[in-house]
């Protein structure tokens, strides 16, 4: 019988033998320290906000079976509620991919799920409820980004003024606090070069390019804004001034900030290129609707440049999540307000061109694409108080296939009809990561024998 999984040592060899580095792809947004799923994922874990008046009203981890070969394909196979609402937002695996860390932006709680014992039924392993105290006042754990044996967590806010001044916080894989790294400000540049007008100290996402010893952060807004009603905030001139306008280059090994770039309008998700000679990363600004490129120039100096508009910036389509393809040729960009996904050709990173767009729903936030780029999954929720109201507040998980020209809907899960909540971030799971056989494959083998 054929082995359904390729062992590490063999797979490493296979991948290493492939020409170039064109084989890696959300898997495309994962840490380079992360174990990767390069074939068919079995599950998508959706970190979901509890909604008042819907189901058990609690934040929960929803597990959806996405393997077409599974008898449960397209179904919610498990939900795990965490006992309250925390403004569930983002999640990330540990570098060994055995645990999924998921944060709450309001309560600053962190839930660590065991996803390796039974990938179909994650269980709550540990809850960190002293993140603010341990970190020295950081609020709103956002990105969970695996480094070797540890987790880098970006904050969005602080417990003094609940504004955007914040830090990155390191934890060990066992869930123990290690260190806090505050973002550079005018008052405390901590050795960083301020290259433009701003050094606001705000934070949002983090990504790394280990081969260049480079780490990048972006900047959003603090608790006082992200917990405010969206319409109210838009009408509040002072509140609208409290958005990040910077990206920061850090020394990855020493964790010291090196350069602050002006990037007006709240740069959010950062995605770095995979190819070994592609020393650049993309981000998009939510309020100014631009694609920005962080790149290393011919002199080895890191620069930042706005390289494309997303839709009509004057209409503020609000670009949110992005995802780069494995071969660095394409960038998916989601815009929340019009519910569209847009695909940009980025073969010339300095001149991205939109080549495709499709309305996914009334509102749209996250995307996760498979390693090979053939499958893309979308979810709807941005923030509890920022999601649309009434019948525009669609909450869904939608699974598409992508043939290079068109997105084709395979199935959808209506999170409201299923009384689950508001669907936010997705992460992929697979039996094979842990040396486990798929149970249905085992049954098939038994039947065939």
């Amino acid at each position, binding site marked *: 019988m054929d082995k359904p999984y390729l062992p590490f040592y*063999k797979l490493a060899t296979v991948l290493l033998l492939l020409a170039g580095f064109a084989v890696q792809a959300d898997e495309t947004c994962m840490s380079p320290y992360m*174990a990767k799923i390069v074939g068919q994922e079995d599950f998508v874990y959706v970190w979901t906000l509890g909604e008042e008046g819907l189901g058990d009203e609690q934040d929960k981890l929803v597990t959806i079976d996405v393997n077409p070969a599974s008898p449960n394909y397209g179904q919610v196979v498990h939900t795990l509620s965490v006992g309250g609402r925390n403004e569930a937002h983002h999640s990330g695996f540990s570098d060994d991919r055995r645990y999924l860390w998921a944060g709450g932006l309001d309560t600053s709680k962190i839930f660590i799920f065991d996803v390796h014992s039974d990938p179909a039924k994650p269980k709550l392993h540990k809850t960190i409820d002293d993140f603010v105290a341990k970190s020295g006042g950081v609020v709103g754990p956002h990105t969970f980004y695996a480094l070797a044996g540890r987790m880098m967590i970006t904050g969005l806010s602080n417990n003094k003024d609940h504004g955007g001044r914040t830090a990155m916080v390191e934890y060990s894989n066992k869930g123990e606090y290690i260190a806090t790294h505050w973002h550079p400000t005018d008052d405390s540049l901590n050795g960083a070069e301020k290259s433009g007008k701003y050094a606001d100290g705000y934070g949002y996402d983090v990504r790394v390019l280990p081969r260049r010893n480079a780490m990048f952060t972006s900047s959003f807004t603090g608790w006082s804004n992200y917990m405010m009603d969206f319409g109210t905030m838009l009408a509040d001139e002072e509140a609208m001034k409290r958005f990040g306008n910077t990206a920061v280059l850090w020394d990855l090994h020493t964790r010291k900030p090196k350069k602050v770039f002006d990037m007006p309008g709240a740069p959010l998700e950062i995605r770095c290129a995979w190819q070994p000679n592609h020393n650049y990363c993309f981000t998009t600004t939510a309020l100014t609707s631009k694609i920005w490129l962080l790149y290393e120039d011919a002199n080895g100096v890191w620069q930042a440049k706005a390289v494309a508009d997303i839709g009509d910036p004057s209409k503020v389509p609000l670009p949110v999540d992005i995802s780069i393809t494995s071969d660095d040729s394409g960038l998916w960009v989601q815009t929340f307000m019009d519910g569209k996904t847009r695909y940009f050709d980025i073969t010339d990173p300095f001149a991205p061109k939109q080549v495709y767009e499709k309305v996914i729903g009334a509102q749209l936030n996250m995307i996760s694409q498979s390693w090979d780029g053939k499958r893309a999954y979308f979810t709807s929720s941005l923030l509890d108080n920022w999601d649309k109201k009434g019948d525009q507040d669609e909450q869904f998980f939608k699974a598409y296939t992508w043939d290079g020209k068109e997105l084709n809907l395979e199935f959808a899960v209506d999170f409201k009809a299923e009384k689950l909540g508001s669907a936010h971030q997705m992460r992929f799971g697979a039996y094979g990561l842990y040396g486990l056989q798929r149970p249905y494959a085992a049954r098939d083998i038994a039947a065939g024998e």
Partner: protein
Amino acid sequence: MKPRGAIGLALLGGLLFSAPLLAAEKADRQEVYLAPGWGKLSFDAPPAGSYKLPALEKAAGGTLLNSSGKRVELSELLQDHITLLGFIYRTCDDVNGCPLSTMVLRTVANRLQKQPQLAQRLRLITISFDPRNDTPQAMAEYARSIMGKATLNWHFLTSESDEQIQPVLDAYQQYVVADVSGKDGQGKFSHILRVYLIDTQAQIRNIYSLSFLHPDILVNDVKTLLLEGDAAASPAVAAQ
């Protein structure tokens, strides 16, 4: 019946994405990429002492076997020295796996040998997670093949059984998945390559996977801990 949806899964831990093209050889007309540790570091390693390495956690102990077959307590070996500790299995043939770990440790030892005052404060520990094949005798032979005639403070350890090594692996979160299909009967293992930097108080101060498992980085991290220790011992000197 053939399982449907046959897939391949990688436990790469940075292997593919952080490795610049340091060396290449033709293999079926395709290129082989080697981890950064095999070549020149593609950036300047931050100078020793210019940064901090905050403690992650206490390094675990455990009863193991040395290459003479005697029982040793890992916790005792972690005392009073700065330690670089890595887990391997001797028959690992992935060029970017265990051989890389051993080569990097050997290179670090070579470099520090030129500075005896530093070398005498460093201990290397290599632990096998394959006790069935890596007997003390096999580890002794392995050690000789690595060290030659050099006199290094390098301990090659194994264990009496899977049951004995498992708690140590768990404590270091060095997860290993056995692949029982090895045609040579020895089997292979999937694991994320990790090397641990441990200070004289047995605190883990850094963990390296492929991206940063490079002699330049490790030497400067070791020196950073030595400088830190010197500063603690002589604050006046450190302040100069």
